[in-house]
């Protein structure tokens, strides 16, 4: 993002609301805090195919938190970079663990049935594009400070400051949906009060277009990143009730598994050096030898692609 980029959209969202906003490739979505700490719940769709949308679960494979230079990945089998986070201040806690706040939980916990949830707010924002509450997906949480222990996650004091802004560069045309998180007035997620947020779309310039092209090229070259053309079924069903298609034949990948017996000769001394691992790394000699082979391969040859940043950070 460059300072020369101009806003083509500049709005303030009041609590408790959201907005579905088209952001075209090369444009930058900027979300800012106006008057202080406010948790923002964010959804993202491919503008031209709503069945492709942000997969927080796969973003979580990189880390429990998002941050600068991280991607908004789409759902497999596409698994493509939708946006790139290009700026995020340290005061913006980000979280990929906590599911959207739901009014049901708030009602059960506080006995008040008038509190909106993520499901309510997101559904209202999505309605402008004829998407329903069922299309809302797990949010990327911005300005949500979380920690975790042996039981699970918990929210801590929101450290957001007025003027904080998160910038996300669109790598494809997307429908970006920031919403003010519900329940912020009843939890530390908003320090027990709601605040507005500012949302801008910054126009693309040559620098942002170049970066979007570069990241797209670098992160969409895998054969297993399927496109709609690869789908056995391409039609989106409209009936709510599910019924089987009698003539359907699945076409599973790499099916069936075919095993080959491979004879491996060890000296008795070599085999004795392996035996202490039997039981812990394999129930039989064959399983043990295969396990040791794959430990070696993982540590010595396996690449760390799709944004796994280093072997040290990868729990193989």
């Amino acid at each position, binding site marked *: 993002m460059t300072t020369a980029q101009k806003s083509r959209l500049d709005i303030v969202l009041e609590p408790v609301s959201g907005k579905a906003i088209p952001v075209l490739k090369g444009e930058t979505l900027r979300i800012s805090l106006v008057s202080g700490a406010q948790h923002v719940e964010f959804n993202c769709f491919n503008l031209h195919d709503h069945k492709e949308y942000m997969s927080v679960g796969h973003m979580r494979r990189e880390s429990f938190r998002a941050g600068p230079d991280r991607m908004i990945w789409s759902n497999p089998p596409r698994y493509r970079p939708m946006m790139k986070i290009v700026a995020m201040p340290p005061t913006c806690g980000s979280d990929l663990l906590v599911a959207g706040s739901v009014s049901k939980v708030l009602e059960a916990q506080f006995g008040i049935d008038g509190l909106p949830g993520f499901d309510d707010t997101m559904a209202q924002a999505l309605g402008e594009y004829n998407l329903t509450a069922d299309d809302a997906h797990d949010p990327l949480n911005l300005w949500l400070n979380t920690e975790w222990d042996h039981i699970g996650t918990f929210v801590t004091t929101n450290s957001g400051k007025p003027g904080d802004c998160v910038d996300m560069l669109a790598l494809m045309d997307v429908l970006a949906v920031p919403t003010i998180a519900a329940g912020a007035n009843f939890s530390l997620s908003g320090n027990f009060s709601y605040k507005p947020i500012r949302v801008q779309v910054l126009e693309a310039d040559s620098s942002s277009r170049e970066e979007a092209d570069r990241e797209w090229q670098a992160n969409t070259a895998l054969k297993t990143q399927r496109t709609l053309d690869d789908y056995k079924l391409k039609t989106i069903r409209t009936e709510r009730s599910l019924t089987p298609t009698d003539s359907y034949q699945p076409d599973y990948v790499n099916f069936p598994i075919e095993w080959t017996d491979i004879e491996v000769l060890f000296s*008795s001394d070599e085999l004795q050096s392996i035996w202490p691992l039997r039981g812990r790394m394999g129930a039989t000699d064959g399983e043990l030898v295969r396990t040791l082979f794959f430990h070696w391969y993982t540590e010595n040859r396996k690449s760390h692609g799709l944004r796994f940043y280093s072997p040290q950070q990868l729990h193989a």
Partner: protein
Amino acid sequence: MASTKIVDDAPAPRTAKVIVQFDQQQRKLLDFLRAEGTFGREDGEIIRNVVLDYLKQKKPAAGGKA
């Protein structure tokens, strides 16, 4: 009286055969290593040499965190 045959030569090292099962995708890794040429050409030879290299890397902590 039965005669006793004395063998002067030291016995050859005994070998142990282990049958390892690889599926068709796993075998592609053997093809990659075969192309490298460092660990041998036959599947069994490659697996053996890789396992021994792994144990060497982990020595003396073989059996520790892997």
